[in-house]
């Protein structure tokens, strides 16, 4: 029996089987199969623990059918830590060799090796235009039928030059800086949306903040954690710790909800290895702006209706809902419209949409319909991983809506056709 699974035994027993999670789990809402909901996964983890069920690929599949959106935890009367249980079960399955081979091979051989990963993405960015054509509103669709890729799917397009290779390590404002912050970039910002990073840096520097972007920083480790590979996740944390330790700064900021959650508490809680980045506070970009810095953004060229999607890892993960809205509403020209169920998961779930695209698609289409109800032209959010999913969901729903990070909207001069 794997140690981590045994460690969550008490948590497994705390589930009273009341079934409240059934009414909130986005995955269950699509399938109505109860092994896809928290209560079911907990029962499966319990069965794996007392060895009354074989460790099978089906078990691994059921455990993988979780977005780690934490909606069940928020609604559970006993606040059972479903995330810890599911991750411990994935760790157990990983040790037993039952997790998807390809995903782990990629994690082991590419993702956790900084230079190899960089080369992989550079090659991919050169190949992608041959295979995918860029779509209106972001991402690309396959030019030719590709095995395993839905022809309508918007795939994130890698940039040929990552954010980290484009910018200097320290960017200073004019005059004496009021504060020095370190930027934790994250994979999606680095490779898919470097514009988010550039926008954050611009807003911060314009507000008199000196920004350090420590070179050599890597993936935060969340994808490894979610894949049940706790060792690799821990190693990512150690690498980043060492890189960040070489710099002095007052705070760390990130524009990725999942990286933020990992840095603030998730890794620490699950790996029990002490704080990710000791000593300084970690902020989400919008949190830093709203709480510490305060900005007076320039006006947009014209009024535009904007709605906001709450990333699970910012809202339920970090309890941040007001700050991004506050920042958005402070932009002259933004006509803010709240969407129904703004805090409902978009269905992206990191690598979830790679292995369960059909489910992700259904969850995403509900989000697209919520967005449609607002009549907004822009959906803003604070997580690049959500942006990948939203771009696909919106394109599929046939809407002409831009997906943007709050930071991008802050520096944006709207073009006349928006």
């Amino acid at each position, binding site marked *: 029996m794997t140690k981590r699974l045994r460690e969550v035994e008490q948590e497994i*027993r*705390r589930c*009273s*089987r*009341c*079934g*409240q999670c*059934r*009414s*909130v789990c986005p995955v269950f809402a699509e399938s*109505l*199969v*109860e*092994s896809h909901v928290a*209560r*079911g996964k907990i*029962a*499966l983890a*319990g*069965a794996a623990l007392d060895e009354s*069920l074989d460790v*099978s690929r*089906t*078990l691994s599949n*059921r455990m993988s059918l979780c977005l780690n959106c934490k909606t069940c935890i928020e*609604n*559970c*009367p*006993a*606040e*059972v830590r479903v995330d810890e249980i599911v991750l411990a079960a994935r760790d157990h399955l990983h040790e037993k060799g039952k997790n998807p081979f390809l995903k782990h091979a990629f994690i082991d051989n590419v993702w956790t090796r900084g230079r190899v990963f960089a080369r992989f993405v550079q090659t991919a960015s050169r190949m992608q235009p041959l295979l995918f054509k860029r779509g209106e509103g972001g991402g690309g669709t396959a030019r030719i039928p590709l095995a395993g890729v839905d022809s309508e799917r918007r795939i994130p397009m890698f940039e040929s030059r990552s954010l980290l290779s484009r910018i200097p390590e320290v960017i200073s404002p004019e005059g004496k800086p009021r504060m020095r912050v370190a930027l934790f970039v994250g994979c999606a910002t680095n490779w898919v949306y470097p514009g988010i990073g550039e926008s954050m840096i611009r807003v911060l520097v314009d507000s008199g903040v000196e920004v350090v972007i420590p070179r050599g920083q890597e993936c935060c480790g969340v994808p490894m954690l979610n894949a049940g590979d706790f060792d690799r996740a821990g190693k990512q944390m150690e690498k980043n710790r060492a890189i960040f330790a070489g710099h002095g700064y007052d705070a760390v900021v990130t524009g990725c909800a999942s990286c933020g959650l990992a840095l603030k508490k998730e890794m620490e809680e699950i790996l029990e290895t002490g704080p990710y980045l000791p000593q300084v506070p970690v902020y989400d970009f919008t949190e830093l702006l709203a709480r510490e810095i305060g900005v007076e953004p320039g006006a947009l060229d014209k009024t535009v209706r904007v709605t906001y999607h709450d990333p699970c890892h910012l809202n339920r993960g970090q309890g941040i809902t007001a700050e991004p809205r506050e920042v958005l509403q402070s932009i002259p020209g933004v006509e803010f419209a709240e969407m129904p169920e703004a805090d409902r998961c978009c269905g992206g779930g990191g690598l979830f949409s790679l292995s369960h695209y059909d489910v992700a698609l259904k969850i995403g289409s509900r989000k697209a319909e919520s967005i449609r109800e607002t009549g907004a032209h822009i959906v803003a959010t604070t997580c690049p991983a959500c942006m990948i999913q939203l771009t696909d969901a919106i394109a599929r729903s046939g809407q002409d809506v831009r997906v943007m990070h709050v930071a991008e909207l802050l520096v944006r001069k709207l073009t006349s056709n928006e």
Partner: protein
Amino acid sequence: MLSRTLISRLRQITGPEGIIDGSEDLLIHSGDAVEAGAHTDVLVSPGTEEETAAVLALAAGEGIPVVPRGSGTGPSLASVAREGEIVLSSARMNQVHSVSAEDLIAVVGPGVKLEDLHRHALAAGLLYPVHAAIDRPATLGGTIGESTNGLRAVKYGGTRNYVMGMRIALPGGEVVQTGARTLKCVTGYDLARLFTGSLGTLGVCTRIFLKLLPIQETNVVTVAIFDRAREAAEASQRILEDGIRPSILELMDRTTLCAVAKTGNAPFPDDAGALLLIETDGLRVAADGQAERAGAICHASGAHQVRQAGTAHAVEAFMNARRRAFAALAGTAPAIVLEDVRVPRSKVADLVGSLRALLEIEGVAMAVFGHVGEGRLHPAIPVDPGDSEDVERARRIVEKISGEVRSLGGQLGPERGVGLGPRVFLERRIAPEKMEMARRLKETFDPVGIMNPRAVL
């Protein structure tokens, strides 16, 4: 074990989307809120009434037991299935067919969740007043099976008072409609009500006709904090004696409050000894006036804090605390024996008093909470099933409770527990002659005896 041939015949009836037969998926579908259940062989989820009837006809023909299932949140071990049985789920019959503001009637499929019916009714300006503490996932079919009363029964009554009719697939495959879509239906036996509370032992309801009420103008939630549970229970008696008709009158004692506080935001002070949750509804003046009088009675009965929840957020915080009670307690011990005790309303303070006394004698952290306005409480006894002395002590406490309850002219409902596996304290709590009548009745509907054979009424 069911044969592959049988499973493929079931698949022919419902199509592949209506069948679950993998052991991983069956694990959770075999249990309810109390017991994990042993692995069944198949779960069938028909999409229509015809499919439901066809499944029952097949099962009756083969003499295979059928366990109807809603969301599996019932605490009565009545949707728990074993090997060789078919679990029949209402999950795919989840359509709200109509909600009529003119006729004050909703027609729903059995798999519709209470929360969805509440939402649909509200959108039409109507109220379905059954609000179980578990009102989100429970299905209408399940609330009929369990005859759910819920938090507002003190004023509105329970499921029984709202079921006007239903369509039922009988074990032989026949479909009957009982009751009607009219408010009064006076011909013949009231079969719809007979089905209510039958725990899926007579047939499977496939469509339900429910009475709705016009929505109330307002609800006012008042919370009173006491040092002692007995004072709170006395206050609840006085509130009712005073002619006030609260729509919710619920008690939580100190142990319950502590457990709730451990699971998140607690909207009450740390040192609260007991909490009375009171809701009054109706026209604004009436609801406010009654709330004020109820508050004054609480003060006079020893409450040291009485306040109204002023915002929707505050109301939700208190309702949520009450809804969390059971699950929060379940999280405090390896297992919980949850009793369902009913006494005449006028005896509820005496009951609370004797339960507290028992608790002191036995030195166990028993909690007491529940529908004090209805004279119905849930003592919850923590046990460690691995410790035989502990189990013995719990058994002793249950016996004593049973004695007290009888001496107060009350009765014990079916016991519920969490984490205990098979029920340790199971005893038939219905008189033998009544059991015999029930048996004969069941035979009329279900001659082969396939419907939920292990459910204990």
